[in-house]
Each structure stands twice: as C-alpha cells, then as structure tokens.
C-alpha cells in the first residue's frame, strides 16, 4: 500500500516536471540567460510555500500520515563541499540541461539520449564514492 503511494507521488511529480517545462533543456538555458521569469517563478513560489510548510511542521512535533514522528535533519556544517560540489553540479546542470528529477522524467517521455546523461550521472556518483576521502569536505 505504501509502495503504491510512493509510486503515485512519483508519477505526479514526473507529470509536474514535464508540464512545468522545468525538464526542458531550453528553460534551463533561458534561466541562466535571465531572459524569462518562468523558472524563477517556479523555484520562488515552491520555496515560499516550502518554507511555510517546513516551519509549520517543525513547530509542534507533527506526526506523519503513518503516525510516526517527523524528523527534518539539519545539513552538516561545511563550506567547501557545498561550494565546490555546487559549482560542479551547476556546470553539469547547464550543460546537460537536466538535474536528476528531470532526467527520469525525460527518460519516460522518450528522449532516449538522456540515457547517456544518466549513465554519466551514475559514473560521476561512482567516482565521487571512490574519491570521497581524498576531497576537501
């Protein structure tokens, strides 16, 4: 039953990513050119509601729909890993025009070359795993 809920949430999110055009390479390029408000509107409005929701959850020990305690962990403190990792991610985001969520959406939408991007992303994840202890964090 829970699995079915996760699947429905995924399907819903996949539809939103496609229909919002956040999964379109063109929208990402346009965002980095500051030529349209579209992507900023999406991220901005998601954030306003996201902040309100998250703060509401954190004030007053809300229970999950399954009656369990909800824990929203803080990110561990650091600067180097977020700055360097973030810049590398941004370079790839702009080049491939897709972050991880849209990659899955585009696969379902039938853009088969996205498989090459996903392969690259798995490779990048794997190489990070190998080098993790040698990198500044």
């Amino acid at each position, binding site marked *: 039953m829970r699995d079915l809920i996760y699947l429905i949430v995924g399907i819903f999110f*996949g539809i939103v990513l*496609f229909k919002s055009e956040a999964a379109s390479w063109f929208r990402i390029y346009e965002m980095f050119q500051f030529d349209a408000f579209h992507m900023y509107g999406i991220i901005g409005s*998601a954030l306003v509601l996201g902040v309100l929701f998250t703060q509401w959850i954190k004030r007053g020990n809300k229970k999950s729909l399954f009656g369990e305690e909800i824990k929203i962990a803080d990110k561990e403190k650091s600067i180097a890993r977020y700055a360097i990792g*973030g810049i590398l991610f941004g370079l790839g985001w702009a080049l491939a025009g897709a972050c991880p969520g849209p990659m899955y959406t585009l696969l379902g939408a039938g853009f088969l070359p996205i498989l*090459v991007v996903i392969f690259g992303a798995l490779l990048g994840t794997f190489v990070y795993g190998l080098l993790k202890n040698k990198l500044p964090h």
Partner: protein
Amino acid sequence: MDSILKPWPWYVSGPLIAFTMAILIMLGKRFGMSSNLRTLCTIAGGDKAAEFFRFDWKSQRWNLIVMVGVIMGGFVAVNFLTIDESVAISTETVAKLKQLGFHSAGSSYMPTEFFANEVFSDPKTLFILVLGGFLVGFGARYAGGCTSGHAISGLSNLQLPSLIAVIGFFAGGLLMIHFIFPLLF
C-alpha cells in the same frame, strides 16, 4: 481540460512542486532525487569498490519507487497530457540559441541537436552528454544534494549549507552558459 494540455504556468507548477515535497515529508520521507543515483551504484555492486556505497540500500527502496513513478509520469505527460510539446522560450533566448547552432530552439521540448536519436552516432555530442551527466552526479553527491534536496528542501528548512550549494549551482550554471558555451559551440 484545455489548460491541462497546455504548458503549466509557474504559479501552478511551483506550488505543485512544494506539494510534492510536503507529501513526502508527511509520509515520513524526504524530497531528494539524486540520492537514487547512489542507491543504484550500490545495487550495481559499488559497495565492493568504496565505503560510500556500503549502506542498506533497501532503506532507500521507497525513493527508487518514487523514481520509477517519475519516469512513468514523464510518459503519461507526453502521451496523454500534451498536444504541442514545443517550449515557448523568449525570443531573445531563441535568437541566442540559433546563433550557437541550436535551430530547434522554440519549436521543440528538447534541442534535437542533443536529444534526437541521431546523437548516438555523434561522438562529440555523446561526450558532452556524458560530461554533463558526470558533473551533475559527482557535484550532487559532493554537495550532498541536488535541486530537490538543496534548492527546495534545504532552503525550505532555512539551511545555510543549502544556500551555499544553491549559489554554487547558479555560479556553475552561469559559468557554463556565458563562458564555456561560446567555446564549445
């Protein structure tokens, strides 16, 4: 029905993305798409190569199911919820892209120069796609999250690390589009 079949405006899409995060939190989970890449590496045997991949991947099974759903969602959206999939980007953007040689700008969902099946026999484009993916995968794990984990969830939780990561995302993206694209195309 007509407005569902058209592209969804930002003021509908943004709240629906926030809703996705809210539902996952209400289910006791979290909103993070790139974690699945690590889980997939572990399933493929990465745990034999590095400590980073030694974790109980079954604890992330729920997120893999979400990922399968996202794939299915893309299929549903393109086949049943879309009539014209071309993306109406701004005329300035179209002009800039045509100058770089992206002639499909304004008339398709993805640039055919990168995402038509012909690219499978084009080594330069294949290299670009692998490189783009590599940077996304490597950078997301190094930064501990991607757009969903940092830009939406992390900032919603007012996390300074996520703000640093998101500034990094934009710095990297601007660098790519404004300084590296002119060298590549």
